[in-house]
């Protein structure tokens, strides 16, 4: 874990292929051993389904759990008294919910990883922050939803946190314009879930010509609901720019099942892997590794999950690696595009959790 402290001191997209592979391999070998010794389920799984080498020489050899494993099993590698928080995924009614077990050190690593990525984009100064959501998401303070956890996670980058939706999820336009007047000419941060930013912010202010040229918008949660309305990332960005002069927009993709896997958009609009996590694309039929440019199931690897065996997971999302170490904005590492949910996967996604 001491390695990680050093990695967090680097710029988040600084390591190129050779350095990164060495670091990931070393870390994932340690994580594999640790979880094999501390989680009986993981040990059984990797022994039965993978040729359980004690030492892997390539990243793709590290066993991967399907994300659905967290729905059917309570997987953890820490003792009960060290469990600090159990995150639950955005399961809708009737679906099993994933349970992700965090201890304090792993939870702190997650905060540091997010800090590395977000401050890399917005800088170390906290910015006045607009949140496109309602305070009612925190109605139950002891256990809030994935959406609430997402807002809290991003709150450390802001100040004067202003929730612009009221308890009925209506835009409070007065509050919004007051905020924009108060911070006129200053950089501000806007955060919200992709669907909500579109539905409850963009569509409500469409005619108003609000000037958001000083804003940085960070949004997450997936495109499923918006694609039904023919809104994709390109449309989203060009509409915000054309109508409100908002040019700094960053989509990010993360999942509750793997701490550390936070992929933020680079200047080409692709999701970029930070120093401490990576993606591998696999053929959905035989799970072989796809070359760059070939679509398949997205596998994610992260150096952060110590409290539960989530360091190498096969997601239910389809994607394609668009390049490595050669992004236009100079960021190193792989960058990829999400193509959607694999057909067999249960329908779910953060935007599904939105209930009025």
């Amino acid at each position, binding site marked *: 874990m001491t390695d990680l402290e050093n990695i967090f001191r680097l710029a988040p997209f600084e390591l190129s292929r050779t350095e990164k592979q060495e670091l990931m391999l070393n870390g994932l070998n340690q994580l594999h051993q640790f979880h094999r010794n501390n989680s009986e389920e993981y040990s059984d799984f990797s022994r039965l389904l993978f040729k359980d080498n004690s030492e892997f020489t390539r990243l793709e050899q590290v066993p991967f759990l399907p994300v659905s494993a967290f729905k059917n099993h309570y997987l953890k590698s820490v003792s009960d008294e060290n469990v600090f928080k159990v995150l639950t995924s955005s399961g809708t009614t009737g679906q099993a919910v994933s349970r992700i077990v965090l201890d*304090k050190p792993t939870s702190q690593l997650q905060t540091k990883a997010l800090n590395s990525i977000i401050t890399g984009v917005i800088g170390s100064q*906290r910015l006045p922050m607009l949140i496109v959501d309602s305070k009612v998401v925190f109605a139950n303070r002891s256990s809030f939803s994935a959406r609430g956890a997402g807002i809290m996670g991003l709150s450390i980058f802001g100040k004067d946190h202003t929730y612009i939706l009221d308890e009925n999820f209506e835009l409070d336009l007065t509050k919004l314009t007051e905020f924009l007047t108060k911070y006129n000419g200053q950089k501000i941060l806007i955060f919200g879930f992709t669907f909500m930013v579109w539905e409850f912010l963009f569509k409500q202010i469409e005619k108003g010509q609000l000037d958001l040229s000083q804003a940085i918008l960070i949004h997450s949660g997936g495109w499923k609901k918006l694609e039904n309305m023919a809104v994709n990332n390109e449309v989203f960005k060009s509409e915000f720019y054309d109508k409100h002069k908002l040019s700094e927009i960053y989509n990010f993709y993360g999942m509750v099942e793997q701490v550390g896997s936070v992929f933020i958009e680079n200047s080409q609009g692709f999701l970029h892997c930070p120093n401490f996590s990576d993606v591998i694309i696999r053929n959905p039929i035989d799970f072989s590794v796809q070359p760059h440019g070939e679509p398949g199931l997205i596998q994610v690897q992260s150096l952060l999950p110590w409290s539960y065996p989530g360091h190498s997971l096969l997601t239910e999302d389809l994607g394609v690696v668009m390049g490595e170490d050669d992004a236009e904005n100079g960021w190193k590492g792989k960058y990829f595009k999400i193509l959607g949910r694999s057909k067999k996967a249960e329908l779910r996604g953060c935007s599904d959790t939105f209930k009025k």
Partner: protein
Amino acid sequence: MTNTEKLTQAFCEALMIDASAVTNELSYQGIAEWDSISHMVLISEIEGAFEVSLETDDVIDLSSVAKAKEILSKHGVDFN
């Protein structure tokens, strides 16, 4: 009011706890009242009380009363 008293007051108001609970050892997530939500309220109370602007790293590092004093010292607030 001394700086220590000001800091104690900021903790009391943000976390809604008694002044006697505000010791150097009091830590983030150590009591139910100091959770991720009240943490942001606390940061804002501290910024207001001492007229400082804390960076994101400070927000993450401010994990105990002792740490708060250490961080504020960097900003020129004296606790001696």
